[in-house]
């Protein structure tokens, strides 16, 4: 075990996979000479040369398409799209080509590519650069979408994503890059499609992924300390495939659930989770499933408004308290933040 940042872990894992398999190569805007907008690829151009670390023009559709072609011919491209917002320019390549080629052409060619891209707001980057639109890809059969919340999971899922024969969208988060955690030294890949119970409990199931899984764990730990609450936390880890079994089994035990997401509420991932619970654990619910998501607005630039729009620890705590009160727990309201 080594304590590392999420950012450093991504860098080290990419490097290790490039050393392990010469078919692994990187493409993206400013990933070479500039060493990446978020410095994930720092030093890799110097070490591996420009054949394996490709700076591309500002043309997401073009380089994503090029990566798909490379993957079909046996290479293992890892594409960096600077933020998930810019993936919209490559939407046709991802949705209509990467996700469909294997199925549409009778399995003649696989597309073993990874698209690494960070989402998330909170950096005052404005409405077009602060979105959480991983749902667009999780919606598409043929894609895999993974979203680690800790450095250890980032390593295990990136290993799994690079070694997987399907196109994988690997969701990072701007707010997680500087978080630290224990990272195993061995190279054991995660199983894509398995959620993680990051905290066991009996009072309520709190479900999230990426930044909201991080918040979920912190809030649950804090409420255990301050209120003696025993909250189970599920980190989805993978949005497609979705580990419905772990979700349902947990709610069967706790009888209540709160789902957290950083994106908009309407038609969101939380709705899919709530429907999953309704399907699999209806008879075990003692209260309606409650969702926490961001405000239904384009993300404001103003720091004050941006903070107000994003889901906070307090929003999560309030949803937990409302749900626990609905099942008969008498709790005092908390107003102060646990940040």
């Amino acid at each position, binding site marked *: 075990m080594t304590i590392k940042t999420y950012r450093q872990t991504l860098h080290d894992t990419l490097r290790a996979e490039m050393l392990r398999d010469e078919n692994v190569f990187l493409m993206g805007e400013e990933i070479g000479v500039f060493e990446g907008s978020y410095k994930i690829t720092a030093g890799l151009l110097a070490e591996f040369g420009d054949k394996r670390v490709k700076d591309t023009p500002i043309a997401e559709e073009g380089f994503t398409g090029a990566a798909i072609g490379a993957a079909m011919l046996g290479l293992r491209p890892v594409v960096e799209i600077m933020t998930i917002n810019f993936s919209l320019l490559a939407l046709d390549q991802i949705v209509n080509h990467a996700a469909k080629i294997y199925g549409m052409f009778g399995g003649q060619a696989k597309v073993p590519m990874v698209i690494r891209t960070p989402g998330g707001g909170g950096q005052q980057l404005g409405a077009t650069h602060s979105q959480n639109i991983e749902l667009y890809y999780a919606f598409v059969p043929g894609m895999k979408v993974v979203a680690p919340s800790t450095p250890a999971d980032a390593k295990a899922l990136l290993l799994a994503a690079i070694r997987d024969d399907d196109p994988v969208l690997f969701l990072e988060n701007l707010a997680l890059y500087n978080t630290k955690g224990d990272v195993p030294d061995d190279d054991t890949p995660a199983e894509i499609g398995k959620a993680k119970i990051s905290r066991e409990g009996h009072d309520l199931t709190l479900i999230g992924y990426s930044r909201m899984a991080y918040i979920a764990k912190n809030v649950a730990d804090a409420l255990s300390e301050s209120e003696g609450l025993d909250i189970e936390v599920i980190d989805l880890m993978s949005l497609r495939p979705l580990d419905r079994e772990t979700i349902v089994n947990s709610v069967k035990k706790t009888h209540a659930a709160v789902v957290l997401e950083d994106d908009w509420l309407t038609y969101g991932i939380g709705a899919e989770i709530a429907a999953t619970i309704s399907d699999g654990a209806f*008879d*075990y*619910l003692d209260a309606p499933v409650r969702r926490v998501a961001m405000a239904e607005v384009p993300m404001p630039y103003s720091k004050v408004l941006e903070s107000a729009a994003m889901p906070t620890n307090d929003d999560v705590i309030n949803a937990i308290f409302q749900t626990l009160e609905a099942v008969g727990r008498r709790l005092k309201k908390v107003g102060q933040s646990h940040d």
Partner: protein
Amino acid sequence: MIEIKMPRLSDTMEEGAIASWHKHPGDRIEIGDVLVEIETDKATMDYEAYEAGTLSEILVSEGATVTIGTPIAVLDNGKDSGPASAPASAPASAPASASAVTTTPAPASPVTVVAPARAVPAPVNKVVEPQHSGSDGVFASPLVRKLARDHDLDLSRVRGTGPGGRIIRADLSDLLAEAPTPAPSRAVTRPVIATGPIVDEKRSSQEVVVTKARRIIARRLSESAQSIPHFYVTAVADAHVLMEMRTDLNKQAEAKGLTKISVNDLIIRASALALREHPEVNASYLGDDSSVMLVHNRINIGVAVASKHGLVVPVIVDADVKTVAELGVEAKFLATQASGKGLSIDQMSGGTFTISNLGMFGVEEFTAIINPPEGAILAVGATTREPVVVGDEIVARYRVRFTLSADHRIIDGALAAQFLRTLTSLIEHPWRIVATEG
């Protein structure tokens, strides 16, 4: 007119006493008004009205005790007295009064779905009694409804404390505490076989340690069944003469104070002689990588014994050169030792052929798994009297069935059949078993 009856307020309640009447004849009654306090074996509880009307008569006065179902008062609801619970004005579209209660309001869509028929499983009908038709009146979480079904709880008497008056799990604590566990698991008490914890409730499974000996048996049998292409040949022999001979021999043995011989002793000897005649059966295949197989010159017969340590196979070496009496003594000694202190490795190794006999359990015939590295095993059934055609008559004769399991890689069907023909012939002419030179 409606008769109000002594309600069942707990599962164990058989009768109740009127503690005090809260309403008096002539009082106007609204749904939910407390009519009367009833004392049960457990507690004194308020009993509320399920129907509106005027209390017309009190039938049981304060302090009196009556059994469940006894009318205690009469309520005038403005309708003729008739069958007390039939809501005369039930809407024509409602198929039955009971299901009308649980009907959800029809959605205002062009498609009209008639839901009542599949409303709620039977036990729940108890939850909502026919009298209070109209709205459901019970507003409960899915978990509560499931618990009510499982434990046969009456939700109509539970006050919901959840949002909007919803009955939540917490509201059932008292009821669940007094409710017996669901009937199916209470009704049967099964003997518990092992000592470990139950690891699977549904099957009531407990862990039992698999002994080392049993693990070895399991591994060897799996290897044999999975890797050896077994084939089976069954024959039946007339054992009439053999049984007569055995009776005769045992009479003499008894007179001399010698050990009696068993049918199995005779079969061991017969098998040994048949093996001598067909040495290719007394052989071992060494695996696909070997260019040779082994044919054994000595005939060492293993005898499968069910001991307290599990299945063991002590080996009688040179079974073809021992007399039936010697074989009987040795087999008995080995079986006793197997069940007692156990057999040594030496006593269990070196076999070239095995006999498994389940005849003493009345088994007619069966097949056995080859004991590697041997080439064959003989499974012997019971020697029983059966109707047999002899000449033109049906007569009762002793017969015995035996099945040879052979390793087809080295023993072909014809060879197995020839071996069984020799064995059958020996059993049918049993003096040859005892008379043939060792």
